[in-house]
């Protein structure tokens, strides 16, 4: 027996009113991060013990910058989605939960942007 109204089926948003958006974004960034994080570890290993100029050159090529920016965006987005669920699960005081979720999203965007800016400065200098 189905308890959902036809309109609810069409909208497909469920009780949380946001549908599968969070689930989908978490999986999409996870899939992107599988190759990107493996690439990132290999790239980091190539600069172990390297001096400043070598590290700058090895992380600053156009391809490296592109992949690094993709890795950083996916990482900060994925982290935000995961930490959001942790807050939703464990913080039950209403105002504290709201404050936590808002600060988390703002911080994720700001810090993610800062890391992308750093990656671009490494590439272009200055």
């Amino acid at each position, binding site marked *: 027996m189905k308890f959902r109204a036809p309109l609810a089926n069409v909208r497909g948003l469920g009780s949380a009113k946001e549908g599968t958006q969070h689930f989908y974004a978490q999986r999409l960034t996870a899939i992107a991060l599988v190759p990107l994080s*493996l690439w990132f*570890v290999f790239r980091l290993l190539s600069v*172990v*013990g390297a001096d400043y100029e070598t590290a700058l050159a090895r992380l600053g090529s156009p391809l490296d910058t592109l992949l690094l920016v993709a890795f950083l965006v996916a990482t900060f987005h994925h982290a935000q989605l995961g*930490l959001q669920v942790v807050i939703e699960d464990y913080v039950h005081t209403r105002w504290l939960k709201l404050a936590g979720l808002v600060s988390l999203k703002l911080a994720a965007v700001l810090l993610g942007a800062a890391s992308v800016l750093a990656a671009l400065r*490494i590439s272009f200098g200055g």
Partner: protein
Amino acid sequence: MKTVQRPLSPHLQVYRPQLTSVLSITHRGTGVVLSAGALVLLYWLVALASGPEAYAGAQRLLGSWPGQIVLLGFTFSLYYHLCNGIRHLGWDLGLGLDLPTAYASGWAVVACSVGMTVVTWAVVLVAGGAR
């Protein structure tokens, strides 16, 4: 909030830990650790972008004994979260949901994440030794 007297599910501490539940909470734990790792990565990238002095300072800090131990923890967390994340993506596709397969894939995640961490740090120590 008003307390309603109604039956509750048993509390966490009455359960004997099982591989599946321990791996599950470890996935969340490593995820939180890796979020802190993203901040350290941000610090290192900003230092590299800021010039030789800032980079040398970051290298000194991360190359110190405590710094290396923290980086070792991040390495294991990354590999664990990566391997177990692939396990989760399999479950999302409906693959390996039966108990024997879930245990087998669980032990595979433990073996892979420990193995990859050991290999990575072997490379780090060899490359760092040639500094």
